């Protein structure tokens, strides 16, 4: 898929690349090509976030977690050759695939952020579940599309995290 594109990779191509019989592919993925593509995308997304988690490393607090997550996430995305190529040539194929995986990622992120939020001083009225949901959505949106924010500028990232992300959630 990285070499030939998502749309053009056939089950035969994939079987040959893996050095297995076509029948083996169908045994492993009874849904055929569609199931295989979706599994590959899911795997790539998991790989991306596992790598991102390693980039972030141990962080003392929520603010640092978000700052490092945005910077490292953006960097990984920019450097992800396969994804960038797919976005360029086959956005109509890759984006819906990614969209189907996103609920899992949001859920994982929500859980992690919820755990972090539980030990923060929250602003009056803030509920951990809501805040974690909102933050998870915003962080993913900002990594995917930074808009006017320059994620290479530490001061901008600081302002973004302390302002747009956390000002409504935690006491400063």
């Amino acid at each position: 898929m990285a070499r030939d594109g998502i749309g053009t990779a056939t089950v035969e191509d994939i079987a040959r690349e893996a050095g297995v019989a076509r029948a083996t592919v169908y045994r492993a993925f009874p849904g055929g090509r569609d199931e295989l593509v979706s599994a590959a995308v899911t795997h790539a997304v998991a790989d991306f976030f596992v790598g991102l988690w390693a980039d972030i490393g141990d962080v003392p607090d929520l603010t640092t977690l978000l700052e490092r997550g945005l910077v490292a996430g953006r960097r990984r995305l920019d450097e992800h050759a396969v994804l960038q190529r797919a976005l360029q040539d086959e956005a109509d194929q890759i984006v819906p695939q990614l969209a189907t995986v996103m609920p899992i990622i949001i859920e994982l992120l929500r859980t992690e952020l919820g755990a972090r939020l539980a030990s923060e001083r929250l602003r009056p009225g803030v509920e951990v579940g809501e805040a974690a949901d909102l933050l998870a959505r915003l962080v993913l949106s900002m990594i995917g599309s930074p808009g006017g924010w320059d994620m290479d500028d530490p001061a901008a990232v600081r302002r973004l995290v302390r302002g747009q992300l956390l000002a409504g959630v935690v006491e400063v």
Partner: protein
Amino acid sequence: MHSVSVVTNATAPGLGPDGAAEPVDGTVAVVDEWAAGYVAAHGVQRRLVDAALRCIARWGIRKTSLDDIAREAGVSRATVYRVFPGGKDRLVEVVFCHEAGRFLHDVDRELAAAQTLDDLLVTGMTAMLGVASDHAVLGSVIRHEPELVLPHFAFHQLDRVLDLAEVLCRPHLERFLPAADVRPAAELLARVVLSFGFRPAAWVDPHDPASIGRLVRTYLTPALISQTASPAQEMS
């Protein structure tokens, strides 16, 4: 260069001479196109968008041709190409933007009447999330032809939507926020609308004023106000 003069010269409510901040070259093509459409409220454009929506509701985007739209609207093919110069490829964006624009135009008076930032955001969020949840055609397209819609709202393509959000929000947000804070504020609001619009959450219910009020007062207003609390700095 694609000019935004159609936006800035328009005499529509809510879009003053400062309606569009300096846009990045080329990224505003869509913005001025659709904004011109809804701001001018041109009869043919509205008729074509309505016709396009009826065709899409019936056959989906993929199976709708510009000929179908022309026939449905009772206009010539050439007229369709004039209104949708990008042809079929740009149809989704143009129709979406027209719909968003039309909707905001309808609530423009309400937005203009808002006395506080809270009021403004509650009105805007209720309207936008309401349309996301109740718009029959939009919903069915997202369900049945996601590949034609989602790419326009993800990764670098979102930039054009964020530009659009800025144009729409600026006249209203400027009443409550410093001019330099409007762009980042509009971006945040667009992210929230798109996220909960495409992927609803139980705690954000556009049909429950208390729920939207809570989202705004607890989370959004403080986030937007915080920008002004620190020395105003341009986004890079």
